[in-house]
């Protein structure tokens, strides 16, 4: 058995030796380099697109919206985003034209020599102001979606009303490999697209619709991180390189520079969350009223589903007899926001955890005690009417407390700062996270996995990509253990839409749990088919008999079927919002420098209910990496926009992500409460690490220096300011 052990990752040696090929490492013969001409206005009519006559255009191809072969739409959820802006631009950095040239330098110079004239239109940057404003960005009221859930019975007992407003800012995914894509013409007049991406079939659908034909295959290159940033954005980039390859008849590559990637690509939605609770004198939640706004940016992307997840998580892991939850995601003239690990849940739970601390403060109850009194218990019903089975809230709390009992080893190295006054603080926060798609998402997708026996090996065919989390290792482990063979004999094929079935996108903490579960069922189907023909026996003896009977290719395809007992009403948002939930508890030990407001992370303990740790090392790696990303969101990462909504700090020198020296020592406890619907009991774990840490940091800062912070990020300047208010 390989499940539960931690074999070295399949792609490890290739990556460690520098042999793994990422998109920008490919250089096909005849390659041209593409570059993008972007809007420098937030909202404007495009009056003209002209080539600077002083520039030598002899080896340059230029493409604009009028050259599109099909509809000018980036196919995703709503048909509102153009592939190239046509007549109007709705955000700064919006693509308007594309160029291709023999070198990267020539392409960038040519892009700068395309001159655009505009007539400015009024622009909106504040979602609260944009909602219902006369200036129209989307529809009649600039509202992408409004969602309202009411459930339960209102209270008639004596209670305290406690209210608060909480805010979160933009966050950049900051995959270390910038967006990169190559399109190569095929002999049949179609194209092969190869690039950095999470979801090959998103790209496949978007490009085929633009082309108006199906002569296309999309291949994932080794991908240098995604975190949601390579969920939907690559569809647009793929359309761009295909347009240039079509215009030139040659392979074209576009790799963004870091600055362009930061300015132009999607970020985490900023949010404003108002919470009002009625609480009993003993601290029991009686009613929760939430009003949440998100800034979607200029186009819809995935905003409505981000909003859903935010609203479905805003109550946190706490029971409450009455919920009244409303969320609105609004269009503004900033670059579109999109998928990012956690997908709305981190913003919502930041607010709820800070609100729990506010309740604790106002009622004079210890914050941990308050959580104990309110955590979900077996059979409790959520805001959608879903009765919880085996909720892991208490288990993760106990596991985290046990792990945090060991003494904290404080960091000693602080280059250049020897005599600082540092004050210690500890904070605790909790979260839940729905695993897999919201509601009936899986029923719509019906993801497929195929297995093919090739010689003595078994190939796993899926569109589920490895973006670092370990899919190339986990799927072979699941299939091998189900077949009863060594995992060395099972491998994932390349994720090429010309070959693999659509197993759905690599998102929503669904890959190991949902697609991994489909791998398990496919392996069972394979064994069942052999047994039906050849009687009992192990996989190898059955395979021998299959071969002896000269039965040809042995291949099975399995489709994910949603459990019939799962009921969801997308109109009322009532029913089983998720097949299961993960649970987490985070305990942060930090120090605050009272002169600078800087936070020094010493140790972070996490306890996470993972269902089953398929590979403990990979699971820990997801949790530690996600937790550090959340610590960056908490205290370091701030996107500063200029008056046009363009990111000003568009470099790694001024958009700060944590280094090895900033990171704490992690203590990572894995709690296993099995989920019967997941392979070997596994739950999704990719996103939950993002949910709880920021609130634990805020509580620890409050304990250390008394500063109460309800907005993210808690930069040193804001910590200092909050200390002075105190």
């Amino acid at each position: 058995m390989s499940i539960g052990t931690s074999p070295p990752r399949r792609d490890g040696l290739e990556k460690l030796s520098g042999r793994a090929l990422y998109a920008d490492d490919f250089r096909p013969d005849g390659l041209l380099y593409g570059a993008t001409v972007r809007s420098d206005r937030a909202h404007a009519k495009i009056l003209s697109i002209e080539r600077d006559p002083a520039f030598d255009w002899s080896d340059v191809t230029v493409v604009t919206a009028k050259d599109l072969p099909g509809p000018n739409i980036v196919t995703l959820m709503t048909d509102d985003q153009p592939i190239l802006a046509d007549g109007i631009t709705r955000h700064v950095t919006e693509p308007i034209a594309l160029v291709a040239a023999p070198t990267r330098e020539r392409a960038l110079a040519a892009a700068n020599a395309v001159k655009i004239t505009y007539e400015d239109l009024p622009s909106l940057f504040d979602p609260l102001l944009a909602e219902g404003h006369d200036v129209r960005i989307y529809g009649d009221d600039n509202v992408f979606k409004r969602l309202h859930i009411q459930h339960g019975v209102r209270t008639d007992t004596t209670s305290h009303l406690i209210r608060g407003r909480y805010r979160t800012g933009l966050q950049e995914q900051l995959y270390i490999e910038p967006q990169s894509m190559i399109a190569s013409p095929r002999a049949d007049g179609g194209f092969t697209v190869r690039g950095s991406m999470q979801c090959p079939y998103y790209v496949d659908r978007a490009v085929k619709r633009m082309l108006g034909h199906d002569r296309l295959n999309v291949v994932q290159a080794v991908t240098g991180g995604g975190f949601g940033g390579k969920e939907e954005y690559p569809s647009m980039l793929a359309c761009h390189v295909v347009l240039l390859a079509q215009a030139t008849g040659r392979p074209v590559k576009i790799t963004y520079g870091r600055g362009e990637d930061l300015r132009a690509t999607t970020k985490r939605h900023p949010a404003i969350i108002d919470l009002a609770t009625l609480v009993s004198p003993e601290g029991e939640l009686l009613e929760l009223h939430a009003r949440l706004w998100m800034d979607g940016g200029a186009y819809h992307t995935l905003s409505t589903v981000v909003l859903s997840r935010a609203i479905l998580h805003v109550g946190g892991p706490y029971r409450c007899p009455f919920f009244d939850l409303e969320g609105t995601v609004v269009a503004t003239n900033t670059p579109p926001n999109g998928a990012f690990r956690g997908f709305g849940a981190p913003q919502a739970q930041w607010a709820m955890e800070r609100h729990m601390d506010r309740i604790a403060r106002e009622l004079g109850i210890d914050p941990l005690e308050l959580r104990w009194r309110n955590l979900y218990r077996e059979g409790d019903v959520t805001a959608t009417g879903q009765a919880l089975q085996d909720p892991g809230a208490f288990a993760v709390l106990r596991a985290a407390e046990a792990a945090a009992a060991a003494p904290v080893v404080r960091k000693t190295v602080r280059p250049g700062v020897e005599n600082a006054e540092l004050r210690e603080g500890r904070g605790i926060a909790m979260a839940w996270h729905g695993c897999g798609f919201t509601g009936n998402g899986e029923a719509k997708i019906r993801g497929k996995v195929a297995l093919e026996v090739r010689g003595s090996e078994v190939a796993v065919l899926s569109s589920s990509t490895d973006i670092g989390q370990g899919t190339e290792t986990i799927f072979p482990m699941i299939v091998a253990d189900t077949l009863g063979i060594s995992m060395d004999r099972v491998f994932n094929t390349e994720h090429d839409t010309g070959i693999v079935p659509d197993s759905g996108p690599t998102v929503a903490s669904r890959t190991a749990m949902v697609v991994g579960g489909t791998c398990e069922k496919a392996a069972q189907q394979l064994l069942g088919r052999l047994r039906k023909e050849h009687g009992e026996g192990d996989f190898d003896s059955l395979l021998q008999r299959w071969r002896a009977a000269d039965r040809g290719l042995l291949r099975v395809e399995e489709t994910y079927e949603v459990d019939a007992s799962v009921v969801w009403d997308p109109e009322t948002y009532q029913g089983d919002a998720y097949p299961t939930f993960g649970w987490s508890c985070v305990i942060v030990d930090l120090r605050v420098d009272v002169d600078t407001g800087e936070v020094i992370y010493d140790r972070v303990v996490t306890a996470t209910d993972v269902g089953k740790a398929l590979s403990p090392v990979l699971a820990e790696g997801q949790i530690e990496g996600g937790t550090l990303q959340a610590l960056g969101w908490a205290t370091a990462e701030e996107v500063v926009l200029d008056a046009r909504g363009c990111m000003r700090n568009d470099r790694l020198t001024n958009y700060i992500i944590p280094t090895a020296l900033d990171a704490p020592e992690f203590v990572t406890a894995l709690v296993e409460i099995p989920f019967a619907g997941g392979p070997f009991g596994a739950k999704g774990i990719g996103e939950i690490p993002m949910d709880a840490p920021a609130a634990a940091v805020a509580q620890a800062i409050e304990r250390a220096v008394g500063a109460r912070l309800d907005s993210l990020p808690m930069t040193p300047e804001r910590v200092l300011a909050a200390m002075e208010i105190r």
Partner: protein
Amino acid sequence: MNVRFRCNGRAVEVDVPPMSRLLDVLREELRLTGSKEGCGEGECGACTVRIDGEAVMSCLVPVCQVDGASIVTIEGLGASVVHPVQTAMLQHGGAQCGICTPGLCMSAAALLERNPHPSREEARVALAGNLCRCTGYQKVVDAVCASLAPEGS
């Protein structure tokens, strides 16, 4: 301009503009694509190589400066025998998406030669110029501290 240097033990000569970035020369001229570009301004460390033993970010080095130098890239780190830091990274789960991994390995190898038994904090200081967004660095530090530097390297 002709620039001569040793790269992974081999003598090489390239004819490129003198201010070409070493990273571009490695990737485009020598087709050594293991060194990656994450930022182009010396912040992320994904392009780290060793020049005469020092771990250096190759996106900041004009190629004229390495004339006569000896360079080791990730392709040369474990060319004949896998370097102990690569083995340890594999065992401890120090690589995830892998884009920062070659640079991390080069910095770690330089550290281990100076200091074969680094403390966790010493490892963190040595790796602070290599950004990783996947791992939280815990397993990278585990791996570096578990690596034994090869004798005499």
